[in-house]
């Protein structure tokens, strides 16, 4: 009976994915994409992956959502003149290429359908590998935390998690590399909006406390550094939108320290313990719990800082539309 929920949810998710790509307008695409994120989060819940559901809710729906909404400001036609120009260009393009594009497209769609059928068959017949549940269960007491997912993330496969924190920092660096950005720029529009200010005042402590709660509960239940990091990043994003960009209010070195703290401490701790004869990311079982909590906290701070900076940069990209000379 409960399978009915899954079937409807699955159909809904597929439909939403389809529609978000087929939609004619960009706003439509983005809003349907939000709904898709929600459907996916419900699917995680149905599959018992609460950690993933929280991450999806936080990162995919919250953070990506606000990034896409922010991007919508950009991709709307700026001036009618410009719009006409692009429209005309598109017209020529489509007229000229309709026929030559049709055949490859049909072939592509057929290929995709074939691919889908094979993949469905492959997934249907998948042998039961058994997973790693048993090994995790036996090793869990030595990991220093009670929640298996946290144990895997920060102890058994800490290397992946460390690289992943690096990837977030890298994402920020990569956005710098696209150029045209001044991180310490003040946005032009301060929040005159009383409502906005009230919302920020009210939600900042809530976001902070709930993030801390998720971080702390990660030891024994679903939650952890990433989820907490995104919630804290939401504070930074709210402040930025309210005309108080965090990175322009703190000294430069502090900003850099916040950004690199998680990655650096994680690694330095590993190196220090390595000097004592352990392998990288090996924690003595007696202290593992405490060390993991410290690492998680610093990682959450760094993730929050990096995500805030990513948003701030993307947000400011639009503020200076005329600053287009390239760096060369």
């Amino acid at each position, binding site marked *: 009976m409960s399978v009915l929920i899954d079937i409807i949810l699955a159909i809904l998710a597929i439909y939403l994915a389809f529609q978000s790509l087929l939609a004619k307008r960009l706003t439509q695409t983005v809003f349907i994409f939000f709904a898709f994120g929600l459907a996916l989060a419900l699917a995680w819940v149905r599959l018992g992956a609460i950690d993933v559901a929280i991450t999806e809710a936080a990162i995919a729906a919250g953070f990506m959502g606000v990034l896409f909404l922010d991007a919508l400001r950009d991709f709307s036609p700026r001036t009618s003149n410009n719009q006409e120009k692009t429209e005309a260009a598109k017209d020529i393009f489509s007229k000229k290429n309709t026929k030559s594009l049709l055949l490859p497209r049909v072939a592509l769609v057929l290929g995709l359908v074939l691919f889908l059928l094979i993949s469905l068959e492959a997934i249907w017949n998948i042998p039961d590998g058994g997973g790693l549940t048993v090994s995790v269960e036996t090793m869990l007491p030595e990991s220093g935390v009670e929640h298996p997912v946290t144990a895997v993330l920060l102890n058994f496969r800490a290397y992946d998690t460390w690289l992943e924190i690096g990837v977030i920092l890298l994402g920020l660096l990569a956005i710098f590399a696209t150029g045209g950005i001044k991180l310490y720029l003040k946005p032009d529009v301060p929040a005159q909006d009383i409502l906005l200010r009230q919302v920020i005042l009210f939600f900042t402590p809530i976001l902070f406390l709930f993030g801390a709660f998720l971080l702390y509960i990660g030891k024994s239940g679903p939650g952890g550094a990433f989820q907490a990091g995104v919630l804290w990043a939401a504070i930074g994003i709210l402040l930025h939108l309210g005309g108080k960009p965090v990175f322009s209010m703190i000294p430069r070195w502090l900003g850099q320290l916040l950004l690199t703290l998680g990655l650096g401490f994680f*690694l330095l701790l590993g190196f220090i313990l390595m000097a004592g004869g352990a392998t990288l990311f090996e924690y003595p079982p007696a202290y593992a719990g405490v060390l993991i909590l410290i690492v998680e906290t610093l990682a959450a701070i760094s993730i929050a800082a990096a995500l805030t900076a990513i948003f701030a940069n993307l947000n400011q990209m639009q503020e200076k539309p005329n600053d287009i000379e390239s760096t060369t």
Partner: protein
Amino acid sequence: MTDLLTSPYPALLVGLPVLLATLSLFFRTRGKALVGLLGCLLTAGLAIVAFIEVAQHGTVIHILGGWEPPLGIMLRMDSLAAVFIGMTAVVGVFISLYAWQYFRADESGPGEFPLFWPLWLFLWAGLNGLFLSNDLFNLFVTIEVIGICAVALAVLSGKTTAMFAGLRYLLAAITGSMAYLFGVALIYGSTGTLDLGLLGQVLEPGTTTTFALLVITFGLMVKMAGFPFHFWLPPAHSAALAPVSALLSALVVKGAFYILLRLWMEVFGVSITYAAGQLIGLAGAIAVIWGSWQAFMQTSLKLIVAHSSVAQLGYLLMIFPLLILAPGVTADSADWLSPAWTAGIFQVIAHAFAKASFFLSAGLIIMALGHDRIESLRDLVGNMRITAMAIGLAGVSLIGLPPSGGFMAKWMLLKGIFLSGQWWWAPVVLAGSLLTAGYVFMLLRLAFAPAREMGTFKPVPKSLEIVALILALGSFLIVFPADYMIQFLESTGVFGSGIESIVEGGAYGND
């Protein structure tokens, strides 16, 4: 697992560059470059030490966190990984030296790009992590690190064309890694392990495995610009800054090839058929012809070099059909395996040196001329003797004329082809070489031609020219330690092994 030596070097090889990259973020423009350069030298030194360690003790491992696979992740540095890491270090350190000078050259230079240094160090860490990794999912994370770094470096120049090319590259890279990850999900679902060594033992042939192999190969082909998916490579490589182009084509695309080689040889042996090998070989053959032809047709130097990368990567794919044995043939009786492997490894190394030198020289020409249209290359020899020499030497290695590393690779490839009886690949190798000779000699002819007007060449720093020349020479010098290197590769690792097709597994052998 315990009979292999545990060593701290694998962990340091990944950790140190990341630490230095993080450190360099705290400095401003000049400081960043200084820390970055020091970091590159340190990392290269560490790589050499690690290489020696492997040469002395054989394969070394590092079990991260002390958790043995399948639960944890193990880093493993065997001779194959050591050779790739050593190559990255040697090529990387020269490119770093070049970049240091190149960005500091005032008026004619492109300006300072402080972000180059942390990104390049992260890229280096990612490459080292990829060569060392022994875990399917960890490989995904490292290819994502490499992908993001590579695209970020590619768009660093800030040109509009670079942005378009970068976005195309990034979308291709994300698509490729997602396809790869889909295969990983299926493999994990059907075996419950991610460790390459264990997977090689437990993987069963079946629809799921075959499909997983298909999507993984698709993903990696996209990432390494294998033939039908090469569309992103030429614009991205040609629009980047000179040191970045060199990094991208010398090192980055080799990462995906390395994974492909490892997975085909070590993991998916059970579901690979003779026909699959032929198919990959065919993609490689088309890439050789198509890429060389496209290179021949271009009119700007960097585009020629970028298209030539597509062709040279095609040669790498052409070793796959040789490594997969027809049904009924055993690995012991197949005497072409060793030449084929030698061809692959030498092609990787020779191409890395030659292509890095080529791109660095192209950067110098742009610095001197302000553009890279080939008709302005007249009298290059008279104005930039060393650069012309570097281009000539690198070109000779790309064509595969003796005594270059490229010659060794192509010779061994032909030897393998004839020993295995798969003669139909031979014309492709020869035609590829001819076409390559076509565009290289076209460049050289222009370089030697007398100038029409005088004084268009601005002077460029000598040191930069010398770095490019050293790299070009490197593609010749690698021939000398060839015997030692083959011996070293044969001591451990998968080098020299082949896949024996299972007859009942549906192989379509034709002999």
